[in-house]
Each structure stands twice: as structure tokens, then as C-alpha cells.
């Protein structure tokens, strides 16, 4: 069967409905086992020792005292003499012990001599980074309508042309914007429990890449990927930080091999925050020229930021974000800091780009005294994707849900109640979301049992349930009739869950396999009933001739026709191949309403509207849930979260949950999720949803604060200190 398709809209029993997670009870009750719950008999506990210094060289490592600590079984240095350490918390050694306490004491008993080197962690001030010789070569990218003459110097022309365009603009807005580094903050830190059976390694790894990590264990351990099985039934968050086996995962396997016992190694929270990934910072100096309607004519920006010791920062490829004016110049400088390395963080680059550029667009509205909504609307002709019409429609819907028009006031001109003002702000975003490679194996047993197996993973997003829905819908069965087997590398390979690729990938492979399997089963049923196979439909637990309910078999009766052997059918999808089941590219509009206490600088989200397209929706409940979660995560980085580094020592000062500020439920306000779904969305098939709704909150909230106060608080998160500083009252 070559043609795959989804059932027509309105004819489904599970797809496009609200279904509760099939593993919800297991998670809520504690029955679900995470990596650190795996506790085979004799398991040793391992602990990592983090370097206390941000930049140094190792002169000596003495583990003799640590080995003598009662309960310590093995001490294993992770660094050698002479190695240079580039950030505080980089792992120096591991200790495996009978108990957590002994492991901790063992770590404390390791003596390391360091040669201290110069420390630099200030990513916010470009001049300071230049003075410290920590900047990379600035990268420029220029796009202009006019071109230089044959004999003209290109750079001189560009400079003159930018200046000319700025002078020709009705309004020029200059501003500084920024967003600090935030760290990954999965509830479950990185880690694994590893056990060997002879030369065979089983790694219970907290991973968003079940099918892709076996080889990462194998190579450094001198075995092959075929000797490794990776398991991850449940994961307490990944968000882009858990694609790899990681050096500490390999170390856990090595400790297990050397001690001959299972070993569990989960990172402590402080090492987790310092070492296991963060989101790069972005700071920008912008000059925008716009016409009197707020349509941007020219964009000129210089940005900088850091991804850690290797430099980096926010990609200039998404600056300005979504909008791509015909005339623009952008320069990006990377700053190397003595800080842990970045890892993909939900929609890499996009949230920062939105926060540092849609704020500048909003300042155009403020400068002209016009409605921010109109400025976003009028600039839609310059969007970098083909979604201008979708944005228009979504903006209209979002405005209706926010009651934007009736609530709007010019920047800083709202009513003040006591010391409290309110304001509105918005942002728009874009993402791909096409499916990843995915293979699955569906088995129909002669007794009617159905299972599907694939090496995918459920990050908490509801992937397990989505897979069940797709298979059950195809077979006309209830959701609980399908046994969904994921979370093991022994199953058919499926892609890593990153970039919003999972839902389309696993829906593709499972729908294909299920349709093929049903076609094979229908051949048997057709012969039995004496009808054409093409005339059969599977619904409500039966396979029947369409239009003739008297000719039917129950699912169980139909499966019995298989005889002794189960029917196994593989489904396969390759990323990028044309398909009627899935597509890619989404838009999305978000609006925030906030209150600001001018006396304390505290920002309180009142209402947040998220309008999001995502093609065909498999499970409405988990889709909405994804958006709620993304908005909450967005509020966190907009108002609360930041990595705070000590400029003197390079210490990561708030690397624990007591000091790393995060919002609580009462700090979130009302969230209105709108699943944007005209028939055209259903028709284009499944598209990923994970990243897009986390992108716009920074811009929307910062713009709302600017609208409320009449002042731009330039850098996110918008802490009371920064708000008061911007208001000039501190």
C-alpha cells in the first residue's frame, strides 16, 4: 500500500480528541521508574567532583585519602595533570561507593592542586570582553536593495547606504536589548544506572535519544553499539540537554565495569546547572529606521553573547526575528567565557532572538505613539517565511481573546491604581517541526493483542499516548487496546526528540505500519466475508463491510484468521520525504497582559494568550498541555531565571534551586491556549509543537512591561532591580 492518509476530519474517534496520557497514573503514583529509580541488587552510588575554580590548570590529583574512606569502592580521576579547566563545575573525578554519604565523603577527600588562570565571565559588556581579548572576529551580514557601483568600495557603500536609509526614515529608534544565560533545569538531572552482563552493557539513561546513544557509550568503552542497550521508559525533562551519553554516562559504565557491580551516577544539582547545558545569552545594540506607519525600512544591529568557553552567542541568522526587512545589516561577536557549555534549549536561538528584536519593533510603536498591534501587522509583509496570512489571522484571533483593542493604551499612558500599572505586549514566532526518521514494528497477535515498538521516548509531552492513538484509531480499537513499547534501543530505531520532530515522525511510522498491517488483515477478512478488501472498514472494535454491518467480524475474530503466527509490519518514515501525513512550518502569535508595581518593580503576568497552529492535532489535551508548559517556561525566563556569575572568581553563584529563581503557579496568571485549526491545518497533516510556543513570551512580556510603564527594561529577566533601575527610582 503506497498511499497513506488520515481519516477525514470529523470521522475520527481518537485523533483530534482529548485523551488522557496512558502513563499518567504511573507517573502520578510513582510507579513510573526513572533512571535513578533503577536499583539492581548491589548497586553502587557514584558521585562527581566538580572543579571549584572557573579557570585553572591541574597540577596534581591525590586520591589516596579518598580511596581509604570507608564505603568507597573506586575513585576515578576524569582529568589528567596539566589539563586546563574552563568552567567551575567541570568534572575532575568520580567516586563510586556503597552509599551516597560515603561517595560524598570520598569526593571531599580528593586533593587537587590547581594553577589559577585568568577568569572572564562578563558576557554583558562587549568592551570588557574586547579588553580581555575574549572576543571572536565579528561576523557581518548585509542585505541591501541598492548595490554598490562597480568601482565603489563595498563596505563604504554599505555604511553610506545604511546612513542614507536611516536619514530617509520618518523615525529612528535606537535601543539596547538583552537576555541573560539561563541553564537547563530539568527536574531530573542528567545521569544513568549502568550494569554489565559479561561484555553486554545495559544503560538506564535519562535521555531524549534512546536510539542514538548506544554508539556513544560503545566507542569510548571499546565495544560496539550492538553490545549496548539503552533504556529510558520515563524521563524527567530534557528540553534539548539530553541527546548524549555524556562523559559522565560513559564514566558510570566504566565504573560499573571496573567494580563489577551496577553503578548509579546522577549529577548533583549544582554540577547539573554548571556543566549539563545552558542557553546562550544575547545582547544587541539596534538602530531601526521606520516610516510613519511603523513599517521598518532599515535595520542595523550589533550583537554579542556567549555560549561558554568556546564563544558563541545567539545566531545572527534569526536577527531580526521572523521579520526580514529588505535593508538590514547585522554584526555578531562571540565572547568566550569561563562558563559551562551551551546545549540546545527548546527552540535554540529563537526565544532570545524574539526577546531582543521584537522589543525593538515594539519601541518603534512607542516612538510613533501608535498601537503595537498595528506595527506588527504592518510589518508582516517582510516575514521570512510564507506565513504572513496565517499571522494576520492569528493576530486577529489573539487580539479577540486578549480584548486587545479595548484594553490598549499608548505606552506609559495607562491608568495607575495605587502604584500599579498594566500593559499589553505581543510577539510572533516561527518553527519547522517536520518529522524525524522513525521506524516502528507493529505486531498483531492472533488473540487480538496489538503492540507497537519503537526506540522513541516520551519527554513528558505525551508521545506514548500519541503513538497509541494513531495505532488504535487506525485499527478502530479503544486506546487501551494498544500496548505501546518505547524507551529501548532494542526496538526499531526512531529519532531523537528534539526540534519538535517527534510527533510527526512517530505518527508517520505508526500510521504507515498500521495501515499496511490492516490491509493485510483485511485480505483475510475479505476472503472470509466474501467482500472486497477495499470495502472493509475498521471501527468500534470490528472490521466490517462498509454499508453492510451484517458482514463483519469482531477484531478478535479477524485476528484469529492469522492462525499461529503474529502479523508483524514495519513502518518507516525518512525526514524530509514528501508525505500526506505530515508537513512542517508553523507560525504562532502570543500576547501578554502584565501588571507592574512601580514602587517595587515587581512584574505580574495577568493574562497570556497563545494562538498556535500545528497542522493535524493527534491529541488535543497534550497539545494544549505543551503550550501551557511552554508559556510557563517562557514566563520563567522573562521574569525570573538567570545564571548569575561572580565576575571576580567565575563562580556560578545561584547554582542551586534555592537561589535559581523560578515562578510558582501563583506567579503565572491566566493562560488562554487557542489551538488554531482551520481545515487547511488538518489537511496538511501532523507538525511538531514542542518549541514554537516557548519563543514569544520574552518579547510579549517585555513589550507589555514597556507598555505599562512607558519605559523599556532592556535586559531579561525583568527582575525588580532591573525594573526599578529602568524607572530611575532605584
Amino acid at each position: 500500500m503506497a498511499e497513506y492518509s488520515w481519516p477525514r476530519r470529523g470521522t475520527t474517534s481518537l485523533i483530534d480528541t482529548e485523551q488522557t496520557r496512558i502513563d499518567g497514573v504511573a507517573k502520578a503514583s510513582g510507579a513510573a521508574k526513572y533512571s535513578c529509580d533503577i536499583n539492581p541488587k548491589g548497586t553502587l552510588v557514584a558521585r562527581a567532583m566538580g572543579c571549584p575554580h572557573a579557570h585553572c590548570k591541574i597540577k596534581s590529583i591525590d586520591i589516596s585519602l579518598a580511596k581509604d574512606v570507608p564505603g568507597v569502592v573506586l575513585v576515578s580521576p576524569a582529568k589528567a595533570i596539566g589539563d586546563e579547566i574552563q568552567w567551575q563545575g567541570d568534572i575532575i573525578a568520580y567516586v563510586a561507593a556503597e552509599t551516597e554519604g560515603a561517595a560524598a565523603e570520598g569526593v571531599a577527600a580528593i586533593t587537587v592542586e590547581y594553577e589559577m588562570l585568568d577568569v572572564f565571565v562578563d558576557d554583558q559588556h562587549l568592551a570588557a570582553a574586547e579588553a580581555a581579548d575574549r572576543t571572536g572576529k565579528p561576523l557581518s551580514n548585509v542585505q541591501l536593495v541598492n548595490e554598490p557601483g562597480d568601482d565603489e568600495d563595498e563596505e563604504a557603500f554599505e555604511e553610506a547606504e545604511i546612513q542614507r536609509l536611516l536619514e530617509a526614515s520618518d523615525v529612528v529608534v535606537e535601543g539596547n536589548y538583552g537576555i541573560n544565560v539561563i541553564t537547563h533545569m530539568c527536574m531530573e538531572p542528567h545521569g544513568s544506572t549502568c550494569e554489565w552482563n559479561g561484555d553486554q552493557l545495559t544503560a538506564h539513561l535519562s535521555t531524549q535519544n534512546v536510539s542514538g546513544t548506544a554508539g556513544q557509550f560503545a566507542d569510548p568503552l571499546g565495544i560496539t553499539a550492538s553490545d549496548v542497550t539503552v533504556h529510558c521508559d520515563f524521563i524527567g525533562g530534557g528540553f534539548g540537554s539530553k541527546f548524549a551519553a555524556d562523559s559522565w554516562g560513559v564514566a558510570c559504565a566504566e565504573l560499573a565495569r571496573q567494580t563489577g557491580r551496577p553503578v548509579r551516577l546522577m549529577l548533583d544539582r549544582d554540577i547539573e546547572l554548571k556543566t549539563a547545558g545552558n542557553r546562550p545569552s544575547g545582547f544587541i545594540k539596534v538602530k531601526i529606521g521606520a516610516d510613519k506607519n511603523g513599517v521598518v525600512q532599515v535595520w542595523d544591529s550589533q550583537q554579542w553573547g556567549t555560549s561558554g568557553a568556546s564563544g558563541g552567542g545567539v545566531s545572527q541568522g534569526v536577527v531580526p526575528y521572523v521579520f526580514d526587512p529588505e535593508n538590514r545589516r547585522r554584526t555578531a561577536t562571540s565572547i568566550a567565557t569561563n562558563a559551562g557549555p551551551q546545549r540546545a534549549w527548546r527552540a535554540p536561538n529563537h526565544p532570545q532572538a524574539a526577546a531582543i528584536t521584537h522589543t525593538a519593533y515594539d519601541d518603534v510603536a512607542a516612538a510613533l505613539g501608535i498601537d503595537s498591534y498595528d506595527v506588527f501587522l504592518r510589518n508582516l509583509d517582510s516575514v521570512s517565511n510564507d506565513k504572513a496570512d496565517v499571522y494576520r489571522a492569528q493576530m486577529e484571533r489573539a487580539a479577540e481573546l486578549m480584548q486587545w483593542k479595548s484594553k490598549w493604551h499608548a505606552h506609559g499612558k495607562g491608568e495607575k491604581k495605587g502604584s500599579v500599572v498594566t500593559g499589553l505586549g505581543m510577539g510572533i514566532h516561527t518553527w519547522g517541526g517536520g518529522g524525524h526518521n522513525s521506524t516502528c514494528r507493529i505486531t498483531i497477535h492472533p488473540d487480538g493483542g496489538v503492540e507497537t515498538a519503537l526506540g522513541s521516548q516520551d519527554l513528558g509531552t505525551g508521545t506514548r499516548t500519541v503513538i497509541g492513538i494513531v495505532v488504535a484509531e487506525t485499527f478502530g480499537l479503544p486506546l487501551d487496546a494498544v500496548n505501546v513499547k518505547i524507551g529501548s534501543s532494542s526496538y526499531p530505531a526512531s529519532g531523537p526528540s528534539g526540534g519538535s520532530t517527534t510527533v510527526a515522525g512517530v505518527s508517520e511510522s505508526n500510521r504507515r505500519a498500521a495501515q499496511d498491517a490492516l490491509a493485510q488483515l483485511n485480505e483475510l477478512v475479505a476472503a472470509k466475508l466474501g467482500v472486497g478488501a477495499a470495502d472493509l472498514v475498521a471501527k468500534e472494535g470490528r472490521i466490517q463491510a462498509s454499508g453492510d454491518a451484517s458482514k463483519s467480524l469482531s477484531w478478535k475474530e479477524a485476528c484469529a484468521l492469522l492462525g499461529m503466527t503474529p502479523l508483524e509490519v514495519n513502518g518507516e518514515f525518512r525526514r524530509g520525504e514528501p508525505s500526506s501525513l505530515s508537513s512542517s512550518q508553523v507560525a504562532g502569535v502570543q500576547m501578554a497582559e502584565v501588571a507592574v508595581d512601580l514602587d517595587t518593580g515587581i512584574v505580574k503576568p495577568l493574562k497570556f494568550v497563545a494562538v498556535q497552529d500545528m497542522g493535524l492535532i493527534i491529541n488535543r489535551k497534550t497539545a494544549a498541555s505543551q503550550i501551557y508548559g511552554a508559556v510557563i517556561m517562557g514566563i520563567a525566563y522573562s521574569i525570573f531565571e538567570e545564571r548569575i556569575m561572580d565576575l571576580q572568581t567565575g563562580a556560578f553563584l545561584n547554582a542551586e534551586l534555592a537561589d535559581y529563581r523560578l515562578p510558582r503557579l501563583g506567579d503565572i496568571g491566566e493562560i488562554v491556549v487557542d489551538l488554531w485549526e482551520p481545515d487547511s491545518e488538518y489537511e496538511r497533516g501532523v507538525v511538531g509543537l514542542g518549541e514554537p510556543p516557548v519563543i514569544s513570551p520574552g518579547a510579549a512580556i517585555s513589550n507589555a512591561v514597556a507598555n505599562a510603564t512607558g519605559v523599556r527594561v532592556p535586559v531579561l529577566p525583568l527582575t525588580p532591580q532591573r525594573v526599578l533601575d529602568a524607572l530611575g527610582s532605584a
Partner: protein
Amino acid sequence: MKAFEYAAPRRESELAGLFSGRPGATAVLAGGTDLVGLMKKMIVAPDRVVNIKEIASLYGISADSAGVTVGAVTRLDEMLDSADLDAFPAVKQAIRGINSMQLQSQGTIGGELCQRPRCWYFRNGCGLPTELGRMVERGDNRYHAIFGNRGPAKYVSASRIAPALVALGASVRIVGPASGEAVEGPPKNGAPVAQDGNALGEAIMPLADFFVTPRAPHQGETVLDPDQIVTHIHIPRDEQIASATYEVRQSEGPEYPLAAAAAALRIEAGVVTEARIVLGQVAPVPWVSEAAAAAIVGQAVTPESARAAGEAAVARATPLSQNRYKVQLARVSVERAILQAAGLETGGF
């Protein structure tokens, strides 16, 4: 966590001899919400941990006409539930503000008062709170002191409840070896007397004097010697006093406030005749502002007079390089604590 000896005395008298006079050698365990974290990070590494939660006489709330006595190991949620403490809204508001059921149901009042500073240099193992003055001065001091910060101590007193208790004129009972300097004066206020009078003695002092700003390393944040513990807190009853705690909290989480103030006001015929204003999270001790009290005494509480008191409170603040904003927040805290004590709208969130 370093291995340690564990003692769980059942009676106050059994405390004798359990504590070492050497700083850091013994640690008092009550709720453990602060101590256990510090021990896990090996910021403190005692040889012996003495769990005082099993001592029945240190537990519970008792009231009489003179006031209310709260045993040091009484849990914060029990204080919230106690009708005896309804007369002291500043105390209940401070406990509610902790915003964490875990801390409220595990933490004790004695531990809350004796918790160590939240200074992140201290918590990151850079040294004792008193050794970090220069580091804080040159470093990230956004949450540090804006008062009383000229010496080596630049952290802020962590206690959330102390400002309210100090404003209400609470006293504290301390027990330690009979030879200890702080041990003098007769037992008062119905607090239990140590059963072994030979080995242990007690002292009762105003809570305002309990907190000290250390001038040298190894001086603690309180008057307690390493072999002394807090056993009871006594709040005097005064029906005429209106009180409130106002904390500037960025979130509804358990994070510490950016600034706070407690106000205890005697209001007669619409005019404040006596006031005690104590700021929290702004100095190494709960910071008693005589200036704020003087500004509001003789006035009716109005938005204007409250604001003037707030301004008086911060007139002599000495912010560090990065915490000037806390001066504004301290001012607002005082203003809003006064308004709230008088039952008026605070005007903010």
C-alpha cells in the same frame, strides 16, 4: 555529608555535656531545613549532631495574661494554626510569607531564628559569612546588606520572623553550661526551668539583643556560644498593639524576600503613640529603625505619613555597589507594613 555522632536527648537536662565549646564541632538539629543542606554541601561539617526535637519541654505554645511562649522546636505550621498567636498578625503574616508547606511543616521557630545567612558566597563554600566582606563588596551583592554593612559582615540576617518578633518586643530564653557568660538572671515568664541546675543555666534576653553583627571571623550571627541553644520565645501580650509584616517577594515561591519590614504600632484616638519598626533582609541583624518609629509617632497613619516613615527608615542607608534598589524596596516595605498594620490599603500588589 561527613559522618557524625548523633545524640537525641529527651530532656533539657540531658543537653549538659553534649555540646562542644569549639565552634563548628557540634550542630543543633531541629527541623533540619537549613542544617541538612549545609551539611550535604559540607559548608558545615560537625562531629556531632544533637537533635533537640525530642525534648518535650521545648515543644508547644502556651499562653497566659502576660503573653505567649513558644517552644523552640514548635513547627511553623503549628504557630500558624494557633489561635493564641492571632493577636500577633505580624508573626502569622511572616510565617505565611514563607510560601512553602515543606518549610512550614518541617521548620521550627528556633531554627528559623538561628538559620545561617543566605549569602551565596558563604553557601558556595567561600568562607565564613564574616570572612567574605571584601568578596561581597567587589562581587555580586545584589541581595546583601544596605545597613550595618561597614564591617566585615555584609550578609543579611536570614530570619523571616525575627523582624516581627523584635517589633513585638519578644524575648528569648537561652540554655547552656552554667558557667557560660550569657547565663544569668532568674527564669521568667513560665518557661520551664532546667532540671539539672548544676550543669545548665539559662538566660533571658530581648530578641533584639540576640542578633549581633560580628566583627571578626568565628563570631556568630547571634549571641549564642557554640554550647548554647535557644529554648523558648516569649511574646508579651498587649491588646493595644497593631502589627504587620510586609515582605517584597518577587514570586510566590519560597525565595527570600528582597526586603521586608515589621511594624508594631500603638494607635490611640487615631494617632500612633508608640511604634517599633524593624526591617528584615537589609542588614546582618533585624534592623530596628528608630527614625521610622519617630517619624510615625504622633501622626495618624495615612499614605503620606507612612511614606514619610519609610523615607526616614532609609535616609541613612549605605548600599553596596549593586543593591541600591534595595533602598527603595526597604522604604516601600516600611511604608506598607505601617499601612497594613493600621488596616489600610498598601496601594501595591
